[in-house]
């Protein structure tokens, strides 16, 4: 089968690429577009390392076909910071030492942003429930959950 021409918006920029019909969005982001911030941990939707926001919904990019991106607005980890200004979640992850190896960090930040954008008052129980699809093997989650709670409080003080 021939490749399909895809037109999409990624991190606020218009993007065109050619997609194999069977290729995942994750493969397209990483291999075609060079956006390697989205990570492959499992390639079957179990680890969340490839989380992106897809027309407002949090998805595992490994479980979305690249051709489905046509006409869609996508935010990846590369689009979370505002230019040189880090997002409060990114600052909070750094200050709370919420990463060790860092491979799961992009997925956690994208997922947490998707939550806080809709539920700025999310409490620990809600955050833990929301992030249960993101696996981290280094931290035991303690500092990640605290980082998200701190970022939420910070974002409530200074709304974007």
């Amino acid at each position, binding site marked *: 089968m021939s490749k399909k021409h895809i037109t999409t918006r990624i991190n606020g920029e218009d993007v065109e690429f050619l997609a194999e019909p069977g290729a995942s969005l994750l493969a397209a982001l990483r291999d075609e577009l060079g956006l*390697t911030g989205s*990570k492959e941990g499992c390639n*079957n939707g179990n680890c969340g390392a490839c989380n992106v926001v897809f027309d407002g919904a949090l998805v595992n990019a490994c479980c979305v076909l690249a051709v489905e991106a046509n006409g869609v607005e996508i935010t990846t980890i590369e689009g979370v910071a505002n230019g040189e200004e880090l997002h409060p979640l990114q600052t909070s992850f750094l200050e709370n*030492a919420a990463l060790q*190896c860092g491979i799961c960090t*992009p997925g956690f930040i994208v997922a947490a942003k998707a939550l806080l954008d809709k539920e700025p008052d999310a409490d620990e129980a809600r955050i833990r429930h929301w992030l249960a699809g*993101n696996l981290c093997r*280094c*931290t035991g989650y303690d500092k990640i959950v605290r980082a998200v709670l701190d970022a939420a409080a910070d974002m409530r003080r200074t709304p974007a």
Partner: protein
Amino acid sequence: MTDKPNYRVIGTRPVRPDGIDKVTGRAQYGADTRLPGMLRGYVLRSPHAHAKIRGIDTSKAEALPGVKAVMTAADFCAPGQTVDQLPDLSANLMAGTKALYRGHAVAAVAAITDEIARDAAALIEVNYEVLPPVLDVREAMLPGAPILHEAMRSRTPTGPGENPSNIVAHTLSAFGDADAALAECDVVVDIVTSTKMVHQGYIEPQAATATWNPDGQVVIWTCTQGSFPARQNCSQILGHPISKIKVIPTEIGGGFGGKIAVYLEPVAAVLARKTGKPVKLTMDRSDVFEGTGPTPGTSIRATLGATKDGKFKALKADMAYENGAYPGAAATYATMVAAACYDIEHVKIDAFDVVVNKPRTQDYRAPSSPAAAFAIEQLVDKAAEKLGMDPLKLRLANSSHEGSRGPMGMPFSRIGHAECVEAALDSPHYNAPLEGPNRGRGVASGFWFNVGLRSSVNVTVQPDGTVSLVEGSTDIGGTRASLAMQLAETIGVEYEDVKPAVVDTDAVGYNDVTAGSRVTFASGMAVVEAGRNLIKEMTARLATAWNVPADAISFSNGVFSTADGSKTGTFKQIAENVVGRGPGLTVSGSVNAGFLQGGGFAHHIVDVEVDPDTGKVQILRYTAVQDVGTAVHPSYVEGQLQGGAAQGIGWALNEEYYYDETGRMVNAGYLDYRIPTTLDVPMIDTILVEVPNPLHPYGVRGAGEPPIVPPLAAIANAVYRATGQRQTQLPMSPRRILETTGKLG
């Protein structure tokens, strides 16, 4: 602990230097390597747990358009060598005459796309003669068991065995007369435990990319725990000089011992040689489970004897550890750690390393210690119950201390196990009542060595008075920060004025693996040495500039000054104005800190609730106490304790390699091999005990490994308190709990 020096940088919590790259997605991990003209590789793996390989026909794969090369084990052979003569190191990367586990690599393809490489692999025809597998460690030890290696003879205390056997080695560790002492003990408790193979579970699958130039220069990008040992192994496997191989470590997405061994690197190099192009190989998650090295399953029988007033007199154990498909030394390690927490006069441990048709095992955080502690720390709990003593006070009364017999019989230097138990006794957690039905509190101790080994760093003074710190230890959990902090402390500059970088194998002296809790400790020693060398060299240059003898210049608190105080300058001023105007200044620090150094002890407290209907164990509260010597960056030290505890919780409650009778792992994915999520663990409280390590200039002890040791037994002890049933098998899954409480079947 009260006389802790007043450090300026050590003990603070700065942001890590590599942090921004990691929160923005810029950091480059193993699979992120992209080179012009790069091919993609794919590895074909054995579907059988035990099979002779009669032949491999790659012709159809080679004929597929887009395929550039296919390789088999024969490509690792030296001239005149046959595949059955390949050493284990090579044979585990690619099976020659025999596949010894499902997932064992048998061939590899390089093609213009990943899809074509996978399609081509499916066209490779391997002629297997399927053999019966042996999957259980005790069954593998029996006469008549299927034999993995016909040429292997057991090493035993009385010499090599006569016949082929799956027992790699029988190691005996004995002090005193344990049998005689046990016969005289007032209280004797015993236990028989079994644990299953579990995986490190790092989120980043293995990935490697290689180029091979016509002049034989090889470059390998890989997410390894040790670029120098990886270079050494590639050199051995490829029969290619070390000087012609450069390993560039990418960022590494977790390892825990599982990324010490090479798997894809030599395969990528061979495919690069055959194609003349860069080749990238990545593993799928199922490849990671089936084709890399998990940690052994075990079978342990142990007996502990004590006097009626609670003094441990004798420990006797028989420990069998799975090595997987090739010989290892997991059980031998176990003999060194099993009794380390306690001062016990009479100890006898028989340890058996055994091969089975499962992946070759590798280290996993405090290798061999958690399974041993699962048995020993339950014995201590049973003894406490029989003696009517508080389990912490019993541990305190029998604790190892400075001078106690340590691993391999050598006395411990200053250690902090007793201090950990005391801190646990004083903790808010242990003093809070636990109420409610089906709830229980458990405690357990744990030990892991702190290995030293070799480290080298370079420090260069920059024109603006800052310094760059060049390291060769790959940074998994924040060691760029902890090493930069030690340098800043030593040379009296701000943490922000030290710029650390992890470089390739051509750019710095030899560094052993990032493992054994050694980087902040041993690379830290190299950093301190480099810092001192730098001050010495700057003093010499300053003597010339100030026209005074070098010994008239002192350096303290970041300031150089003459004895009369007439001339002074901060490090930064001197670096900028004196060094910066002279020839470049780079110094090194190199250490060999030996094999066994210091000792890390942990003690954990856990509260659980067991659902009597479903058998699910919920962790209600968790506290991890550990002697960390000196916490260089306390946040990342806490993170080690929390992460280790969480891995231990997963091991205790959920994780196992689940095999069918043919030797197929039926849960080779994260959905079914379920590691803890945010919902499975509570916040994990930490208590950092700081008994300075006399072997390190700032008192640092390795912190990474001890925290995975206590959780298995601590949770088992808690479940016992909640249900009245001892848990002798892992994982303590809902089904297992219901079986032991009589609610199932």
